[in-house]
């Protein structure tokens, strides 16, 4: 959507004007302006990525400089892909991804739909709702750990207040059944506003005349909702899902602070596991292969998804 705009604008510039510039040519300026950014990204993103690929074929350990690393081919990849523990980490990640996205879409869309009723003061309340998502996940996650304490924590106390259970009768972070949900709850609390904002933009992009026409055709409100509202908001919603998906696949800080991957390994998402391999066990080569596998997964899934998104947009 951006390139067409730029092209149009470029086409509008008269040749006469372009030629009139003194000093550096536009082409030179363009390169001078773009080069530092590209250089920085090459140095801090692309070069490391290539280095990671290279390391992933070795048994290098960054804490053993006296030992010469050996080239071991695909051994690291083989080890990772056949390790049942890592598949469990992947499952935990999938559970986290699925439920955070599902809940955030559901609640976020509902909220946007309600806010779009344009009640008095909706701007103010929207701003308040948005606050959590701008905050530091590590600091917030750390504090939620406190809220989740049985007995002394506010969360258990509130749940107990409404259900009549003992506050100490359940452990959000400590029980194998509840811990995966405890991280879903905090992530949903933080990021629902994100989905909400995007949905709200989608709802506001629907011109009134479409509804007016439907009204003239005597379509019921429910029918309008499914034939107008949902399809028009869908591209926005899909965009929100893309962002949340990529972000949550990378999830590290919030969950590390909340559960540290426990109990056992029930909330050990792949990035947490990767961090352990790379910076606690110092199996640098192995962890590099792991990183590449994760990167390829995100990139692959995201590309497929973007294709689907574009199809929806074209409709």
């Amino acid at each position, binding site marked *: 959507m951006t390139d067409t705009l730029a092209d149009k604008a470029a086409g509008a510039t008269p040749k006469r004007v372009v030629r009139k510039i003194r000093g550096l040519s536009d082409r030179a300026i363009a390169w001078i302006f773009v080069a530092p950014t590209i250089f920085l990204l090459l140095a801090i993103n692309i070069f490391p990525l290539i280095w990671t690929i290279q390391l992933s074929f070795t048994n290098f350990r960054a804490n053993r400089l006296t030992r010469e690393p050996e080239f071991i081919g695909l051994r690291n990849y083989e080890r990772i892909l056949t390790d049942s523990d890592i598949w469990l980490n992947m499952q935990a990640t999938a559970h986290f991804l699925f439920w955070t996205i599902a809940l955030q879409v559901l609640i976020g869309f509902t909220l946007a739909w309600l806010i779009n009723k344009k009640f008095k003061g909706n701007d103010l309340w929207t701003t308040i709702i948005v606050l959590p998502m701008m905050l530091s996940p590590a600091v917030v996650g750390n504090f939620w750990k406190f809220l989740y304490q049985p007995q002394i924590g506010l969360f258990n106390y509130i749940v107990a207040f409404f259900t009549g259970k003992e506050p100490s009768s359940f452990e959000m972070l400590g029980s194998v059944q509840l811990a995966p949900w405890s991280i879903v709850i905090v992530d949903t609390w933080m990021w629902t506003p994100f989905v909400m904002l995007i949905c709200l933009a989608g709802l506001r992009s629907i011109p009134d005349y479409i509804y007016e026409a439907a009204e003239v055709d005597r379509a019921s409100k429910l029918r309008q909702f499914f034939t107008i509202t949902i399809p028009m908001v869908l591209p926005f919603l899909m965009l929100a899902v893309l962002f949340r998906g990529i972000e949550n696949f990378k999830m590290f800080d919030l969950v590390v602070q909340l559960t*540290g991957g426990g109990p056992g*390994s029930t909330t050990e998402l792949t990035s947490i596991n990767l961090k352990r391999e790379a910076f606690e066990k110092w199996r640098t080569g192995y962890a590099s292969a792991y990183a590449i596998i994760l990167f390829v997964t995100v990139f692959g899934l995201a590309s497929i998804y973007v294709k689907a998104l574009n199809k929806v947009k074209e409709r």
Partner: protein
Amino acid sequence: MKKVTSAAVGAALITSVSVPTMAMAEDLTLCWAAWDPANALVELSKEFEAQSGHTMNFEFIPWPNFADRMLNELNSGGKLCDLLIGDSQWIGGGAENGHYVKLNDFFDTEGISMDDFAPATVYAYSTWPKGTPNYYALPAMGDANGWFYRKDWFSDPEIQAAFKEATGRDLGEPKTQREMLEIAQFFQGREIDGKTVYGASIFTERGSEGITMGVTSALYPWGFKYENTPGSYDMEGAVNSPEAVEALEFYKEFYETATPPGYTNSYMGESLDAFKSGQVAMAMNWFAFFPGLYADPATGGDKIDFFVNPPQNQAGSTLGGQGISVVAYSDKQDAALEYIKWFADPEVQAKWWELGGYSAHNSVLNDPGFKDSAPFAGDFLEAMGAVQDFWQEPAYAELLLAMQKRIHDYVVADQGTAQEALDKLIEDWTETFEDEGKL
């Protein structure tokens, strides 16, 4: 990257050689964990500053991050710390990867003898390879995992009567692990002063070393061994011996039936919190915290008493504690060595104990008045007589993380059996030793 590091080491060596022994006022930084004894060390070091003219700076890192941060620092060849009071398990890596300065020559020239320190501490904190006279640290802080309890509850006649009725025994400091569990189960869920209280808080932390340090306090008394013969890396039948399985099952039972709810990821801090907030009758923790606990206005004084980790098949306590080392990347090694020389002095060691640090010096420990100098002093001596430590291999972090995972998966997340957990642990450890070329 190798070039850079060797250059750094070279530079460090050159400076240490070329700078004559002439006393130059230096700014020294000592790194340690952030806990009560560290504050005592700050006090103690003021004397060194006055005497030597050097200035001491301190970098204290909270326990959960201590190992991560410090090993990261050493592995990046950082010059932050001139002196490091590093955990006992780091000695292998510190020595083999050249992070620590070897101290033998220095000890010889300065007349510091390792015979003046408690043998268990020298073995654990100073030597690599284990038990050989190659010293990379001076024992700085002796420590072991011990227990403390609510003396006021234990001596309450009503509670005593209820205990007698429930178990047929008299309520007192437990003499075995099983007795301890029985007492903890007795207190679990009991109403005391209108509040529900629980048995004991134990270590269950997943992220660093917590649950391993906790579970070994059960494993060692049952007779757990890492290898069939020391140095053989032959673990089958040792690590997963029937005694080990029983001890692990015991720890899980303890966790499930006698600990407060929510203590699923708890280590030193949580254990202290549980005790100080009056939630538990007993708690496990390092001796290092005992002076602070004894001084606590709410639950200290005559409300608290201490006992050594109870035996089962044999006596055994999990070793904590640290030695003080000179970091090889430091530019101020001479001044750092001066500090160690000062610290090794018997008089300084005596003051160290007085301020709340656990000296490992024989002159302090063998002093006839030592046992009565604090309510936990005798327990400390007893514990140090039967301590065992985790692997101290250069690959210790990997070995530790494997154990953290397997034990936490079994004890807290309730997956599989104790036998399976230990069998898997042997697999993990075998893989690590194979990667290391030791198997």
